[in-house]
């Protein structure tokens, strides 16, 4: 994802996309952690 497009999304959705972006990565970090624990 280019910084240009991300900036566009953030502006076009009045910052909602930023919050959702953060939410996505936090959810994925949590799931990856649980997978790593299960696979260890």
């Amino acid at each position, binding site marked *: 994802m280019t910084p240009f497009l*991300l900036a566009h999304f953030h502006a076009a959705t009045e910052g909602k996309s930023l919050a959702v972006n953060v939410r996505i990565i936090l959810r994925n970090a949590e799931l990856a952690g649980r997978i790593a624990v299960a696979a260890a």
Partner: protein
Amino acid sequence: MIVTDLHIRVGPHVAEALRTGQPVVALESTIVAHGLPRPDNLRVAREIEQAVRATGAVPATIGMIEGTLTVGLDDAGLTRLATADGVAKLSVRDLAVAAAAGADGATTVAATSAVAVAAGIKVFATGGLGGVHREAFDESNDLITLARTPITVVCAGVKSILDVGATLERLETLGVTVVGYGTRRFPGFYITDAGFDLDWSVDTPEQVAAVLAARREQGVHVGGLVVANPLPLDEQLDPSCTTVRSPTASPGCAARGSRARR
């Protein structure tokens, strides 16, 4: 003459975890350096690491500091990539030349995957994968790197402004395994369902671990495993919002269904 450690530097916590077989999760630094605006980016980078720690795993954010490729950046390193100007965006092909130049750099999904595997890390969390663009020919290096890199990458699919169908076809051609997490529909990053079916789904981390164990025992498949983890429906951005689908074309809403679905 720039004096640089040309080896991959592994942070002490990560090195200890890898030595003793504790779970480790690789994290990319592009989201920190280029993906999020300041000053949120540094706070979020720390929150991402904390989200990994809360599960009992050790986070290993990967990036380059003054030419030293580092697995498990410390807080000073994270801060530097979040706040310095001129941080390079590093794909796999850039790693060596950036090291020789003594650059600061943030690693893409492709580079983070490749470096993680080189360091012995098997699981990686990111936001979304790169993919195939809709118009001028442009395909992210993420796809072919995943074809030859045995990483498990947890992501929310690819952004639906990309050509999701073509991206999934390329992943098939390249032999990258794709499973939905709790779904048989491929997510479109901001949206829960980008409009394409998946052949396989898993419902628990233990099922993913079973896939990894089978792969290891079989010793046949060498590519990556994409675990596509969609946002819950009530958290997605409004799919009818054209700006989510295309930054340039206002008829994006009307176009939905013609190109995004088969």
